[in-house]
């Protein structure tokens, strides 16, 4: 391998940083076109380099010791970037989504200065750095870089009340989560005296699982799971997603949240596994996944604010991701990695569609927009198709990923998970289809939505209502959907994903690559692709989604049937909605509860 490949990982971070700094310095004098072009160019540069890395990781891990501190006798004082297939894949996904968001922004904001682009580029660098780093504290730094920029991006629309509160909730809860992580890093450092994943792993081998490592690991995970929106650490997500600019939501839902889960998987596999056997972690992740999936799906159904609905569908999907991750074996995680990419494409397209609607009609409220968007043909098709894809319509990437994950889960003996995954994707997809049918087709009647967070007071992100939707807004929507569709058709993808998951779960291989320079990986063995029953189950979940959508649209016709619903059914539902209070104090209490539950969970299993 030429040494230049080793230079790529730090460049993926450095290039957007430099461009961001230059744009910030010259943003006042540069014309908007130059700013757009420069940020897009640097993003494409990152995308291209990520693809090169992705290709290079087929045969080996790409290890770059920053500062040139290559290890001597297995120890070093530096920080390392270790890029394996999952890391390179995530970097590619991040860059692709940022490219889509930047294309969409071409005409989106009227601000003449470069601040939005600068923030997005910093966000890009932070996310890529987090995906590539092999050092616990360095991961915290990139985590905070992502965070600090994300808070500002969320509150970007200062003219409105809601984005500010959403950004504040997001910022406080995420910061508190990050401090939990740092406390955990301190505890782990106290035990191991190391910060690199690989060094920690080697220091932990042979150690007993005592309270110190359990609490330390739980604290580190708490920070990641706050970002990963696992219930009950998820409250910030809906608040922030509902109000952030739509292109930013694409990045939040599509990859930032998933990076939180990646953080858990990576630190466990590369650092913590010697004191936390898979049997201990598995039930905790799965339990968290089930609760998250159920809460997300239930809350998703109850929303009439389009972006908030999509946000809760992300929570539901996070639950499914957690379950698949919890299997901790290559087949399920391979499926999961395809699922995450497919979900990012589809959810991104859906968020951008709601951005188009917001700009064209000045609202994202399902009831208010009833039948209002019939004459947005492209958006209409894309939104409804996105809803179907979210419900895992074959051959979208969401379907392929989900069916592979389900296969992996049922091979591992988790048959129940299969039903749950189908149910949750049907419900979230159904909720999107219901909203889409009402808005774009005028189906059903306006729902009754008192006391909700309504989408009607949102202000468009351009200063004028767009008479004609600019093509730069529609291109990324179509491109994302097309990408999500193609993903399911790429031959050999299941094998590659399975291989990537095996690399992710290869504890000792990671340490050997980082510290001993043994970076070659075994070439992938072909794995089975999707099956006929997987195809049929995909169709089934789409049909179920249609049923869910129809029920939502025509529920009033059966109102009499539902008038005698016992309070046993409605009470938990109401309690759930009350819990999403938007109150910071509540969220802090929930964070502490989540952290303690996580610790206790890891301790008793």
């Amino acid at each position, binding site marked *: 391998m030429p040494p230049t490949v080793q230079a790529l990982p730090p460049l993926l971070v450095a290039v957007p940083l430099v461009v961001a700094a230059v744009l910030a310095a010259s943003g006042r004098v540069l014309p908007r076109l130059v700013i757009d072009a420069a940020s897009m160019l640097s993003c494409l540069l990152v995308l291209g380099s990520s693809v090169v890395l992705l290709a290079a990781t087929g045969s080996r891990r790409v290890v770059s010791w920053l500062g040139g501190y290559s290890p001597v006798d297995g120890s070093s004082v530096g920080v390392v970037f270790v890029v394996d297939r999952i890391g390179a894949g995530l970097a590619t996904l991040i860059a692709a989504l940022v490219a889509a968001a930047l294309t969409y922004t071409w005409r989106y904001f009227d601000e003449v200065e470069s601040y939005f682009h600068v923030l997005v580029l910093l966000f890009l660098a932070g996310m890529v750095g987090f995906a590539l780093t092999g050092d616990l504290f360095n991961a915290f730094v990139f985590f905070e870089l992502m965070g600090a920029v994300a808070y500002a991006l969320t509150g970007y629309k*200062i003219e409105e009340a809601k984005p500010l509160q959403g950004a504040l909730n997001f910022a*406080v809860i995420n910061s508190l989560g990050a401090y939990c992580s740092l406390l955990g890093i301190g505890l782990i450092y106290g035990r191991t005296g190391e910060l690199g994943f690989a060094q920690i792993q080697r220091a932990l081998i042979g150690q007993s699982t005592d309270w110190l490592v359990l609490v330390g690991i739980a604290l580190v995970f708490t920070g990641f799971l706050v970002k990963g929106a696992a219930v009950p650490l998820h409250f910030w997500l809906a608040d922030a997603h509902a109000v952030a600019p739509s292109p930013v939501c694409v990045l939040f839902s599509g990859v930032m949240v998933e990076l939180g889960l990646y953080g858990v998987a990576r630190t466990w596999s590369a650092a913590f596994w010697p004191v936390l056997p898979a049997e201990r972690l598995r039930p905790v992740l799965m339990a968290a996944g089930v609760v998250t999936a159920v809460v997300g799906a239930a809350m998703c159904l109850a929303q009439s604010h389009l972006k908030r609905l999509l946000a809760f569908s992300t929570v539901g999907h996070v639950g499914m991701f957690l379950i698949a991750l919890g299997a901790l074996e290559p087949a399920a995680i391979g499926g999961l990695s395809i699922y995450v990419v497919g979900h990012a494409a589809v959810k991104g397209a859906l968020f951008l569609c709601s951005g188009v609607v917001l700009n064209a009609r000045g609202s994202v409220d399902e009831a208010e927009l009833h039948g209002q968007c019939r004459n947005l043909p492209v958006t209409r098709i894309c939104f409804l198709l996105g809803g179907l894809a979210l419900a895992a319509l074959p051959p979208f990437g969401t379907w392929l990923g989900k069916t592979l994950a389900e296969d992996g889960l049922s091979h591992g003996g988790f048959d129940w998970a299969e039903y749950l995954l189908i149910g949750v994707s049907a419900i979230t997809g159904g909720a999107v289809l219901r909203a889409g049918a009402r808005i774009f087709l005028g189906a059903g009647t306006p729902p009754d939505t008192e006391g*909700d967070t309504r989408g009607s007071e949102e202000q468009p992100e351009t200063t004028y209502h767009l008479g004609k939707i600019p093509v730069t807004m529609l291109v990324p929507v179509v491109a994302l959907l097309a990408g999500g569709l193609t993903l399911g058709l790429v031959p050999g993808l299941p094998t590659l994903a399975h291989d990537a998951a095996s690399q992710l779960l290869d504890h000792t291989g990671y340490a050997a690559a980082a510290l001993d320079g043994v970076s070659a990986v075994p070439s992938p063995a072909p794995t089975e692709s999707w099956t006929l029953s997987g195809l049929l189950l995909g169709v089934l979940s789409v049909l179920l989604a249609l049923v869910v959508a129809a029920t939502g649209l025509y529920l009033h016709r059966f109102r009499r049937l539902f008038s005698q619903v016992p309070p046993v059914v409605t009470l938990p539902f109401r309690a759930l909605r009350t819990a999403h209070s938007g109150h910071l104090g509540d969220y802090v209490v929930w964070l502490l509860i989540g952290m303690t539950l996580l610790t206790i969970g890891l301790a008793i299993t």
Partner: protein
Amino acid sequence: MTTLPYLVAGWLFLVGCYGLVTSHNLVHTVACLTVAQSATYVLLLAVGFRAGATAPVFADVPVGTRVVDPVVQALSLTDIVVAATVTAVLLALTIQIYKRHGTVNPDELRTLQD
């Protein structure tokens, strides 16, 4: 004394959280968040302490002198700057919230109820 500094760190974190939970004022909320964050420096520096050692600066002491852990100090330095900047963003949000909501009492911010 063997665990006192660690316990002080835990105490600061919890007290910060208590402040966050009970806060009537977002400015106070932000202040409490910095208290919770200070737990992290106290813990890190306590973990890196070496009894009877000097600071890790070899300006006046010969090379080879026992020094305390410089790594955690570097981490804490990074952390302090991060804390200050996040505080700035939060305070900026607080100011804008005051302008848009007319209040900085979290109990009165009701726009994101489900």
